[in-house]
């Protein structure tokens, strides 16, 4: 199990690096999905099967498809690789990478001090459900409102212009 965790972690990290350095956006998306799936594995290892499942279905599935839609709609992909390359060339990388490295260093510095082990038992769907519809019931309602807000915003912004506009 531990091995699986580190394996998945390695995959996740490598895949994520792939996301941020890829010039082909579709490939990048695939890397992202890979990364998400690897994380889903980690969730499972950490005893969170529901989260693992949702990660795979909702995140890697639904949300990424949304990305794919847009990429196709805007006709990005192979054709924009040259442009991406040009954008990525140069030293624009250095400062952000350094900053992120420093941040990571800071995180590593303090996180290495944390002691504790992950759960020996799974926290299963039942436990999550009881919690969710117990004390967190308001959160569920509010989450729906959040989604509603997102929905309305997205609807208002992305709906097709009125006839004659375009």
């Amino acid at each position, binding site marked *: 199990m531990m091995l699986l965790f580190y394996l998945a972690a390695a995959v996740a990290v490598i895949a994520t690096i792939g996301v*941020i350095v890829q010039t082909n*956006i579709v490939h*990048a998306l695939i890397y992202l999905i890979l990364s998400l799936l690897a*994380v889903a594995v980690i969730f499972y290892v950490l005893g969170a099967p529901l989260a693992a499942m*949702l990660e795979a279905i909702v995140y890697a599935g639904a949300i990424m498809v949304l*990305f794919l839609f847009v990429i196709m709609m*805007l006709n990005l992909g192979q054709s924009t690789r040259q442009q991406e390359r040009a954008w990525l060339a140069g030293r624009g990388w250095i400062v952000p990478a350094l900053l992120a490295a420093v941040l990571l260093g800071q995180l590593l510095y303090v996180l290495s001090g944390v002691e504790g082990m992950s759960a020996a038992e799974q926290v299963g769907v039942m436990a999550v459900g009881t919690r*969710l519809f117990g004390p*967190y019931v308001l959160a569920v309602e509010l989450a729906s409102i959040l989604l509603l807000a997102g929905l309305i915003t997205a609807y208002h912004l992305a709906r097709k212009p009125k006839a004659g506009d375009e």
Partner: protein
Amino acid sequence: MGAIPVEHGLILAGILFSLGLIGVLTRRNIVFVLMSLEVMLNACGLAFIVAGSRWEQADGQIMFLLILTLAAAEVAVGLSLIIQMYRRFQTVDINVLSELKG
């Protein structure tokens, strides 16, 4: 199930978070930026799962759920904005959005 040191999980989350941040900072294509944001949010979700796992609580997963909701909504809105942006500027270069300054 074999227990995993919490710090390792958190460090993984930290690495993913930093990578996502690099993506946000370096990519000019706004779709990439949005994807990198997803990486960051996902890293946060991972951190919650790790933490929840440490305490054997469901709360971590619930927070992950909420983050998932948030990410979905965020992506939806973000992508709709990208569409509008593409419509107006015919590009996904984030640098065109620099008329407001000073």
